């Protein structure tokens, strides 16, 4: 089963007005390792033609990317209110 299919099993209450994680594209464009791409279990960070693409909508709020990024690009906060992933089993 591909990661995309696994993520499609999840329920989210997406907050369109607030991206709880943001990145600094200037830092990402010169990043030597892009460890976020390999660390994120929800495939929120991908490289498209060598350029970092980030989407917060699939985030499972684990906090791994905040630790993974040692270059200061990731700005990590929790979603506001009860937005974000909703686990059934957890």
């Amino acid at each position, binding site marked *: 089963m591909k990661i995309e299919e696994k993520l499609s099993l999840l329920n989210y209450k997406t907050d369109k007005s607030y991206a709880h994680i943001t990145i600094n594209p200037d830092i990402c464009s010169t990043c030597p390792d892009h460890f976020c791409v*390999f660390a994120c279990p929800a495939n929120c960070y991908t490289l498209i033609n060598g350029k970092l693409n980030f989407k917060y909508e699939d985030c499972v709020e684990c906090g791994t990317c905040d630790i993974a990024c040692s270059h200061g690009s990731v700005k990590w906060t929790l979603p506001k209110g009860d937005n974000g992933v909703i686990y059934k089993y957890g």
Partner: protein
Amino acid sequence: MSEFDVAVIGAGPAGSSAAIRLAQNGMNVLLVERGDPPGTKNVSGAVLWGNELAKVVPDWERSAPVERYVTRKEVAFLTEKSKIAISFSSEELQNSKSGKIIVRGKFDQWLAKKAKDAGAMLVTGVTVDRLAIDNGKVIGIQQDNDVITADAVVVAEGANPRVLINSGLRPKLSDRDVALGIKETIKLPENVINERFNVDSKSGFASEFVLGFLDDGLLSGGFLYTNKDTVSLGIVASLDRLRANGVTHSYDIMGKFEEHPFIKNLIKDGIPDEYAAHLVPEGGISSMPKLYGNGYLVAGDAAAFTFSNGMVLQGINYAITSGILAADTIIENRNNINENTLAKYVDKLRESYVLSDLYNFNGIQNVTWSDFVQKSLPTLAESVMMSLFDEKGMPKKHLRQIVTDAMKSGHMKYSDLITNGYRVIKRM
């Protein structure tokens, strides 16, 4: 005059246990949880070991959503082609009901309801940003510019302690503080689980795995627990090894675990129903934040109270106990909350098994996350077992010769085996 005697951040096992104890003792408690309902933001294996829950919910067995009791426990080393396992079943383990397999989505909701029943005010769907601090004293909790005041705050926010970090009360987490846990819940009919794992409808199987078959320097542990009609399957991966590897995606480790021949068979025909990920505190006492301050206490995962020696993974029991001890400290000093009185929380933790376990097994992560335990030992064992059990119509060698040959082919020296073996025994 504060709005609440105590504000508790997080309705997981630590927070809800604290809230129950506080409310039972007449305190005016606010329990704030960002998940709605509680449990929808939490991820865990999950086995609750021990009977700590009885201290706050004496008749828990009548209503707690327990999936199954652990009646068979395994620790297994997976190499590419083999599984070497220690399997333990015991009537005594069965009767003591020491291990309770739970689904946190149901369990956390149930425990939070107990806190509400005890008199705590439960507020869900609210994310706390930071502690409200005035003149060095914690005076409550804060979201945006809203402050709710409380005489004391119990921080039980879990493995990713944003409130503590945002409040400047602990540094950001590093690769060594936490590992990444990924879990899948897979649907299987109850009768299939019973047959496949050789259990009945009340009894359950819990197994931890050492995933030595992973290549490219990756280190990871795995787990499998049987729920009522689902199976919890997951991995806990070392972040610094994943970083050093630099080419493997974390979710591919989970994929490799699922595809391992001995796991694939166990989840055959199962329908994946949920994918989840969470940080797992792994650093032990070296990752522990300051456990108290002027007006606040830290409990559960936020305090790094988890423990794994490779044989057992524990945390929910520490969460419950630390929540209760935090509550007791506040109750005993209710008219005089300050840094000195709250410091007694640490004494209580030291007297209990929580800090004793963590200090006793200090440094265990250097053993469980070592190449020796993860790779060398399983490979050696595999080679010895194959020589012992694979009958090829040849004259048999003595065990000592088999071990020597296996070590030679694995480029291992006797001195390495003895030194590393001593380290393992000493720390475990």
